[in-house]
C-alpha cells in the first residue's frame, strides 16, 4: 500500500498534478521521496514541517538561496537540509529547449529534481539541495549562463510582461528594460544592502500583465500620449461581427469619450478625455491601437500587507520616454534607492516610508515637482505643512 494516500488522491482530476511530478522525481531522487513523505505528514497533521529560517548561500553573494531544514530530520533525512535556489529567468520567461535541458541536467546532478516554473517574483526555483551542494550547483549554473536572483533585503529579480516580443499593445520594450536594469543593478541584486526588499516590474501597457502595480516597489507601465489610432475599415468589420460596439465598448468607456455612429459604422474618440484604460483597444485590437508617442508611467510603492497593510503603486512620473540606455530612469532609480536606504527603518518598504514621511519630502529628495496625476484626489484633511521660506 502507498505511504502517501492523501497525496495520491491529488493525482486524480483533470488539472495537472504536482504529485505526479513529485513521484516522477522521487523515482530518481531520495530527497523528492522524503519531501513527499513529509508533505503527506503535513496533510495528515495539517501543519508544515519545516524549521524556521536558515541562512545559507554561495560565496560572494548575500542572497539567492533560501535555507530550509526539516523539523523531522531523523524521519526524513534526505530533506534534513533542503535549500532552494532562485535562478534569474531570462526576461519574459522565454527559453530554448537547449538551456532548459541544461538546467535540468544540473539540477538532477545536485538537487532534488524538482523545480518551479516560476516563482511568484519571476525566478526559476530549484527546489531543494543540501548545504554541501550549494556552491557546486551555483558553479555549474554559472557555467551554463544562469546567475542567481534576489532574496533578503536586496533588489529582487525584476520581471516583465511578454511585451514587444508578442504583444501589439506594448508601448515600451519591457524585455529590454527588465534585462538592462537587472544587469545594471547586479550588485544590489546579489548583495543585500537595503532596509528591505525592493521589486521592479515592467508591463508594456495598462493591462499590466505582470501585475506590477500590485507588487512592485517601482512599477514601470507603458503608455502613450498621442491619439488612439483608429482603422476605420476594421471598425466596419467589427460592426458586422458579434461584438456590440455600443454596449460592449462605448458604454463601458470610463471617460465617456467615445462616440459610435451605428449607421455610418464609425467610431470617434475624444482623445483629450481618454485616460488610456485600454478597454476599447482590448475589445477591438484590429481597429484600435495605442498612439505613437510612447513611454512609460512610473509608479511607486506597491507591496503585500506585512506590516502596515497592502499598498498599490501610485503615479510618480506620469510620462517618461524609455530608450536605451534608460539614463533618466536609472538616475531616478538611484535617487530612490538613496533616499529610501538613508531614511527607512529596518524592514520598511519604499511605499511605507513615503507614507510615513509624506510625498512632499520624497519628491524633493528625488527632484520631482508635484503634479495632479500623482493623486486620485487631493487631501480632505487640513493638516498640511509649509516649508521654510514659504511663509514670511
Amino acid at each position: 500500500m502507498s505511504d502517501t494516500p492523501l497525496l495520491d488522491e491529488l493525482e486524480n482530476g483533470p488539472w495537472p498534478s504536482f504529485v505526479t511530478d513529485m513521484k516522477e522525481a522521487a523515482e530518481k531522487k531520495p530527497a523528492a521521496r522524503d519531501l513527499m513523505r513529509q508533505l503527506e505528514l503535513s496533510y495528515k497533521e495539517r501543519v508544515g514541517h519545516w524549521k524556521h529560517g536558515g541562512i545559507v548561500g554561495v560565496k560572494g553573494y548575500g542572497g539567492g538561496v533560501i535555507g530550509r531544514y526539516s523539523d523531522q530530520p531523523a524521519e526524513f533525512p534526505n530533506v534534513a537540509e533542503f535549500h532552494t535556489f532562485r535562478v534569474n529567468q531570462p526576461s519574459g520567461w522565454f527559453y530554448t529547449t537547449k538551456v532548459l535541458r541544461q538546467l535540468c541536467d544540473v539540477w538532477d546532478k545536485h538537487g532534488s529534481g524538482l523545480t518551479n516554473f516560476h516563482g511568484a517574483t519571476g525566478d526559476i526555483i530549484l527546489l531543494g539541495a543540501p548545504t554541501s551542494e550549494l556552491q557546486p550547483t551555483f558553479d555549474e549554473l554559472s557555467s551554463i549562463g544562469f546567475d542567481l536572483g534576489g532574496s533578503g533585503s536586496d533588489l529582487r529579480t525584476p520581471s516583465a510582461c511578454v511585451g514587444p516580443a508578442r504583444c501589439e499593445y506594448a508601448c515600451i520594450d519591457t524585455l529590454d528594460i527588465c534585462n538592462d536594469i537587472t544587469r545594471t543593478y547586479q550588485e544590489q541584486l546579489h548583495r543585500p544592502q537595503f532596509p528591505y526588499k525592493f521589486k521592479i516590474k515592467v508591463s508594456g501597457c495598462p493591462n499590466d500583465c505582470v501585475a506590477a502595480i500590485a507588487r512592485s516597489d517601482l512599477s514601470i507601465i507603458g503608455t502613450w500620449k498621442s491619439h488612439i489610432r483608429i482603422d476605420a475599415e476594421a471598425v466596419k468589420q467589427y460592426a458586422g461581427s458579434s461584438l456590440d460596439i455600443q454596449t460592449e465598448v462605448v458604454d463601458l468607456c470610463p471617460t465617456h469619450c467615445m462616440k459610435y455612429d451605428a449607421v455610418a459604422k464609425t467610431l470617434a474618440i475624444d482623445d483629450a478625455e481618454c485616460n488610456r484604460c485600454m478597454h476599447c483597444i482590448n475589445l477591438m485590437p484590429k481597429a484600435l491601437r495605442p498612439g505613437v508617442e510612447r513611454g512609460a508611467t512610473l509608479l511607486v510603492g506597491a507591496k503585500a500587507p506585512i506590516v502596515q497593510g497592502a499598498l498599490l503603486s501610485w503615479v510618480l512620473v506620469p510620462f517618461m520616454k524609455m530608450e536605451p540606455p534608460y539614463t533618466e530612469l536609472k538616475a531616478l532609480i538611484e535617487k530612490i534607492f538613496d533616499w529610501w536606504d538613508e531614511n527607512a527603518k529596518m524592514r520598511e518598504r519604499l511605499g511605507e516610508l513615503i507614507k510615513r514621511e509624506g510625498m512632499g519630502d520624497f519628491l524633493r529628495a528625488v527632484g520631482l515637482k508635484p503634479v495632479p496625476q500623482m493623486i486620485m484626489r487631493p487631501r480632505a484633511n487640513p493638516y498640511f505643512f509649509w516649508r521654510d521660506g514659504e511663509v514670511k
Partner: protein
Amino acid sequence: MGVYKWDDKQIEVDEDGFIQEPDQWSEELAKALAKSEEEIADLTPEHWKVVNYLRNYYKQFGVAPMIRKLCKETGFELKYIYQLFPSGPAKGACKIAGLPKPTGCV
C-alpha cells in the same frame, strides 16, 4: 542543532552554524570560525573592525546594524566587505561575531 568543535573546545551551533549563546563567544572562537567557515587564515585588523563594530552594535541595540550603517561606520564599501567575508556580512561576519542569526538586513 549541532556542535562546532575547534582546538579542544566545542560549542552548540544551529544548522547554519550560528552559535546559540552569544555570551559564549570568544576571540578564539571567532578565529576558528573565520578559518573553517570563510577560509580566512588570519583575521586582519580590518576583519576585526567589522567584527567589533557588529558586536558593539549588537550589545547596545540588541540587533545587527543595517548594512548602510555598517558600511558608513566601518568606512568599507559593501563590495569590500564581501572581499573580507566572502559569505557576506550576515552569513559571514555576523556568524564570526557571534550574533544571533540576523532576520533583518545585514
